[in-house]
């Protein structure tokens, strides 16, 4: 048997009405989406179903309805072949008792199908890659939280998986360790050898790593977007604070061709078309005698997308 060939044209992940029920509770409900990006982010508040989705893809929970495909393989039929292509870094502390880091990572490599000698060689490489080279003969149980996170990453990538599933990889890390972890994940993404599926409730982590995002809310898809496309759209977003609310000013901006949304009285958020500049906004305000207290020019961030998704009517309870 030979290791799987590099990624084909099949999407990394396809969800087709996927529903998961644990006991009497519906945890995931009618998820349908398709992702082909290098790094896919699963975003949502605690309890949204991110971890349940990852565990379902690993076959830990059976779908109650619908299905999913990973690299075109059907979850119901090809559980083992799918797991052979996945490297999973769980959210909670997980290790094998009483063995050193290098033995632990080698064991995980062998379970994924590496011959003993190759598993040992790659265990050393993986531990050096994540920065645990000097600690590789220490027992994992004696590691600090940050080191345990890194050794979990090493075991997830020892066999060179096509898909790396990272569940809250920066949990419990101090700022330098978090930075290092995100650098590693970005490096893995940029090498293109593994696709990344990153679950996090931290917007910054997802924004810095992912190019596609699935936002979950109460087990349903609240939004999904192609962050890379959003970044490249180069649209101009402006946030304006007025001294007093003015419907006339809003109408004037709409006449200019801007999309205007009133966040709260006296505070507007607008998207300017290419032909309109900030100077035009100041001119309209001067003409109507409207006082502008603050004007921020910015692009739509993941935070905006996330907040919109959370405020929207998507997602059931």
């Amino acid at each position, binding site marked *: *048997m*030979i*290791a799987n060939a*590099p990624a084909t044209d099949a999407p990394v992940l396809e969800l087709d009405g996927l529903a998961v029920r*644990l*006991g*009497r509770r519906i945890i995931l409900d009618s998820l349908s989406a398709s992702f082909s990006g290098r790094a896919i982010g699963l975003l949502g508040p605690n309890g949204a179903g991110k971890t349940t989705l990852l*565990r379902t893809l*690993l*076959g*830990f*929970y059976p779908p109650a309805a619908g299905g999913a495909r990973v690299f075109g393989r059907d979850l119901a039929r090809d*559980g*083992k*072949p799918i*797991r*052979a292509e*996945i490297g*999973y870094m*769980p959210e*909670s*502390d*997980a*290790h*094998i*008792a*009483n*063995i050193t880091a290098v*033995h632990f990572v080698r*064991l*995980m490599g*062998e*379970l*994924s*199908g*590496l*011959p003993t000698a*190759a598993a040992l060689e*790659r265990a*050393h*490489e*993986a531990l*050096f*890659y994540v*920065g645990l*080279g000097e600690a590789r003969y220490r027992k994992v*149980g004696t590691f600090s939280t940050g080191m345990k996170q890194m050794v979990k990453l090493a*075991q997830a*990538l020892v*066999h*060179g998986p096509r898909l790396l*599933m990272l569940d809250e990889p920066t949990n419990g890390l101090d700022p330098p360790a978090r930075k290092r972890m995100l650098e590693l994940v970005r*490096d*893995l993404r940029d*090498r293109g*050898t*593994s696709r990344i599926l990153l679950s996090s409730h931290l917007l910054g982590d997802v924004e810095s790593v992912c190019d596609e995002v699935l936002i979950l809310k109460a087990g349903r898809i609240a939004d999904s977007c192609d962050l890379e496309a959003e970044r490249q759209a180069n649209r101009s977003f402006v946030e304006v604070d007025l001294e007093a609310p003015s419907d006339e000013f809003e109408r004037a901006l709409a006449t200019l061709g801007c999309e205007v949304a009133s966040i709260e009285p006296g505070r507007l958020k607008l998207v300017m078309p290419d032909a309109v500049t900030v100077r035009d906004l100041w001119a309209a305000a001067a003409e109507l005698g409207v006082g502008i207290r603050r004007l921020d020019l910015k692009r739509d961030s993941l935070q905006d997308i996330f907040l919109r998704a959370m405020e929207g009517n998507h997602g059931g309870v």
Partner: protein
Amino acid sequence: MAVYERIWRRYEGRLTPIGRRWSVVTRYALAEAFSSRIFTAFYVLCLLPTLIGIFLVYLSHNASLLENIGLTREFMGGLTDIFFQILFSWQAIPAFFVAVIVAPSLIAADLANNALPLYLSRPINRRDYVVGKLAVLAILLSPITWMGGLLVFVLQSYLEGGSWWRTNWRIGAAYLIGHVTWIVVISLLSVAISAWVRFKPAARGALFGIIFILAGFAQAVNFVTRSSIGDLVHLLRAIFNVVLWIFGQPLRNDLPIAASWLTLALTCALSLWLLHRKLRAHEVVE
């Protein structure tokens, strides 16, 4: 010292057959067991009954050696069924202690350290995992039970010559079937306890409790009811009845042999059900 670059690359080489991945679980668990020198020494001691059996078989067929140590073949009395039954017991008891020492750490440690998601996110499933863990006990217990027993039987057949093995085939069958049944029962039971009791001393205590407290309970029930009905929960009685039945000897109670087989089968079924309930990547609280 080897120098490793901090780079990462795909693995493009050969993969091991997916159907044999359970053996990785076995191999690492065996290495863990033999990492203790005390256990290794104890395990060697467990081979003593077989070695003594081989020595006695050899001695009973070596007239000059018997003469040198001042014994006669008549003094040895020949090697009867009783000799083989006693040897069976002296092999089965150390096997139980090996299971008591090794089994509690097989699954309990993985559960305590949340390792099951790591195993089950690989291309192995729960059945592979359990088979891998059970194989540890099968590999450890076989040399000190049925393999050793058959070795003694084969040596006796060879030295006795003629048709001895044909007239005494029940001895070989008892060693093989009796010990293999004992290994299956004790392995399933101890691994199931290991899955439910994470604290090792408590798991060992539970295994002792199930075997010996139930035996005491069975005796009490038998005494009160003036019957053998209590033996339905007496595992040791059940396994020895099976062995006696194969040896062609009278049973130690009034129950039919099917009752002993039923006791053993129900113990195995209960153990499998307990494993099925407990061994999940993540517990679901309903």
